[in-house]
């Protein structure tokens, strides 16, 4: 069960604006999905190792060798707002 308050909290963490109607719908839908997810609770998981990676890879590290960087105009080409050769955003302090 996930109530409106929790939906709003999670939406804030995820930087998602939700309309009132969306919050209500999400609360219902998410609760139903979480009910299904909670069937996991039927299992005794004590002592089971969690799996983060299904394949065994030995330290895939990269040699410290420079590659060519993108030309600045390419890096900035898709940005919605460019100023002073950088990505412009509303100030975090605003």
């Amino acid at each position: 069960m996930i109530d409106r308050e929790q939906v709003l909290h999670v939406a804030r963490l995820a930087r998602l604006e939700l309309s009132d109607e969306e919050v209500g719908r999400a609360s219902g839908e998410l609760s139903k999905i979480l009910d299904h997810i909670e069937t996991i609770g039927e299992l005794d998981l004590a002592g089971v190792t969690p799996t983060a990676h299904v394949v065994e890879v030995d330290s895939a590290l990269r040699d410290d060798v420079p590659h060519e960087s993108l030309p600045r105009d390419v890096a900035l080409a898709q940005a919605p707002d460019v100023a002073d050769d950088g990505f412009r955003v509303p100030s975090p302090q605003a």
Partner: protein
Amino acid sequence: MSAGGLTDLTATQAIAAIDAGELDPAELFEHYRARSAADDLGALGWVAERPPEDLAALRDRPLRGLPLAVKDLFCTEGVPSQAGSKLLEGYRPPYTATVVEQLAAAGSALLSKTHQDEFAMGSSTENCAFGPTLNPWDRTRVPGGSSGGSAAAVAAGLAPWALGTDTGGSIRQPAALCGIVGLKPTYGSVSRYGMIAFASSLDQAGPFARNVTDCALLWSHMHGRDPRDATSVGQPTPTVMPTARSLEGITLGVPADVDGDGIEPGVRAAFDAALETAKGLGARIERIELPHARYGIAAYYVLAPAEASSNLSRFDGVRYGARVDAPDLVGMYTKTRHDGFGPEVKRRILIGTYALSSGYYDAYYASAQKVRTLIAHDMKAAFDSVDLIVSPTSPGVAFPLGSKIDDPLSMYLEDAFTVPYSLAGVPAISIPCGLSEGLPVGLQLAGPAFSENRILDAAFALEGAFGFDSSAALSATGGAS
């Protein structure tokens, strides 16, 4: 050769025709280009306006310049790569995904980008900001998803073959619903670099083709260790083109949960008939238990949304994509993401953020990872006694547009038979095995990690015996024929 004849050629046949001097790659490209331009299934986004400039050079490479349709989840330099999302509308990346580069190096010519569920989240391709894709077998039905555009395009002859991605079933299920062949490889076989991430620990690229031979051929040029993807390992052995005509000495395991309800009777009948065919080819059929497989969907719908919630944080309106302006930073973020993401993506971001949030991590994320361990152990134990596990790919045939879109959980359960193998990271293929209500039914064959050759060989033998006729879909489009 007549234009209709060109569509009828499989990729392998087209290559033979080129080698025999009967077909020019430019002619083939133009044929598919014209058909794609007339796509009325909503399968395609960007379509090439002309063949690539190096088509003549591609001719000398193994894939002979054959056209390739690529799911929009793959980044292609200078070509829109929108992942089915409004937020990425018109986004043209400055680089190309490794696997697309590899296929170009092998002689593929980029023909089109295919529609998909937004960020690969969905099983119907209805969650696409650019409209749904229709199933060429029945335009009132979905093609499956999330790689529905690729599956529909191959089934309808808009491309000889295509690239898709599979996180919980996104290649296998649309392949089944569109009556074609789709392979989800062992996790780590194919580079994920340049593939827009949904759930990093599950995502894997794979081929769609009209038959097993074409599938094996495209696949043979896809795998390999990529230094740009730390989780990639490639394949221990090269791909061997399938030749098997019998299944002598092969044991097929049938999981007990296939007997459960929830499978449509027509699918059940087609599956039973497929098992009979397998027996006729010499296979031994054995019942097996995968005791934790039924918790697969629950675990998957924690892990995949959790990873997705983090993977999608980069869509913040700063460096690319559509931005909704606001005077303050948080307002810009929340409005951009509200307007840019569709309902299913938001739903999964919320589930995933919730599952990772303080106080819930152990109950959800850590537990789901443990279920993943148990399912992987189940598979390992099963593959000690059987060579391959078979099941229907999907519990039902292609469903009507709009029928599940308002019921997320029922949509999620579409993946019940495909998800466990994704969690275990093992390979699985879907091949068409028959019809139910005039719609294709898919048979899934799964094997242990890196057993793609074994899977392809068995699938090839079964395909020969099924004699599935896909011409209904091929001739279904109004494209230039």
